[in-house]
């Protein structure tokens, strides 16, 4: 008889077929959570955008939101990912979308970086507790202490309709975001 396990919060038990499957499911739960998938509600957050202002996701209910987690300010390229989004902003605005950039950098780094790259959207500081919001989205690398390059498109009802994790060191660009915004109802 196969062992039967009661899942927490589930009305019915589910079967684990073998010891091998059990160890696989243990390994999965020890890895950091993967990024939130389409269909999930985008977790609420309130983060500082300037030393004395905060931005909350619920402020944008009613408009589509692009959330771009990224590792750090000040990467040494002409148009890094945030600079690119500032450049491409008119295309995002065609869909009425707002853009939020989130990294664990402190607010003063964000302000200087935003000024240098002439950013036209807020950079939010996931500084204290460090990476807490990034973690809720499955976009944090705890060992390194930086957010991953994870993108999310959130519809006007607050539901994630598209997400993407870009591999280490690769700036994902804007194409996936625009395709996702096009598909919003």
């Amino acid at each position, binding site marked *: 008889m196969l062992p039967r396990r009661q899942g927490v919060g589930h009305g019915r038990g589910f079967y684990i077929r073998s010891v091998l499957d059990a160890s696989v499911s243990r390994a999965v739960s020890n890895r950091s959570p993967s990024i939130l998938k389409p269909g999930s509600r985008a977790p609420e957050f309130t983060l500082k955008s300037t030393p004395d202002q905060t931005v909350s996701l619920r402020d944008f209910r009613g408009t589509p939101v692009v959330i771009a987690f990224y590792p750090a300010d000040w990467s040494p390229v002409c148009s890094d*990912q945030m*600079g690119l989004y500032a450049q491409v902003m008119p295309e995002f605005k065609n869909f009425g979308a707002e853009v939020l950039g989130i990294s664990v950098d402190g607010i003063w780094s964000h302000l200087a970086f935003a000024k240098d790259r002439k950013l036209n959207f807020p950079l939010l500081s996931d500084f204290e507790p460090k990476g807490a919001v990034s973690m809720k989205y499955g976009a944090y690398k705890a060992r390194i202490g930086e957010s991953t390059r994870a993108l999310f498109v959130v519809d006007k009802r607050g539901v994630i309709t598209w997400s993407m994790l870009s591999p280490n060191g*690769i700036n994902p660009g804007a194409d*996936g975001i625009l395709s996702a915004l096009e598909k919003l109802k």
Partner: protein
Amino acid sequence: MSQNYKPPRLTLPVGKRDHAQGKEDAPLVLLEYGDYQCPYCGAAYPIVKKVQKELGPRLRFVFRNFPITNSHPQAQWAAETAEAAAAQGRFWEMHDYLYENQPSLGDEGLFAKYEKKLGLDATRLVREVAQHAHSARVQEDYMSGVRSGVNGTPTFFIGGARYDGYPGFGPLVSALEEAEK
């Protein structure tokens, strides 16, 4: 890193509208989205020349505009100047001259002198740039880049797929030869 990661592909395939060097049926295709005022594109310019020399007739090189107007105030002017030169059949000469004179972008006198040297109708060229006669072409390049996954400048596409490696001579040649297989 996801094992299944595939880089984005060109949404606008290389075609008749493009500025290209090399034969249409060349097996290796390198496409660059570039900004004339970007120092990284300036650094890539001699590297591309070296790659072209190395691969000879096997390579087709295509250039499309991606001016980062936010940070580069002369980039749009430079892109339109190159397209205006293209309208008189001298795209590549102007493309090269712009990259070789990056610090002087916007120096209309310098470029007017070069246009005359090339035998171009400089008055017509300058007028077309002032009237933004070629801005639609630049915009078409730019939007094709945005939709294809351009993530900065220069962004290279090899065999139609975005190249995410280091844009040095060796890695570019390797990636091009790898794509041929």
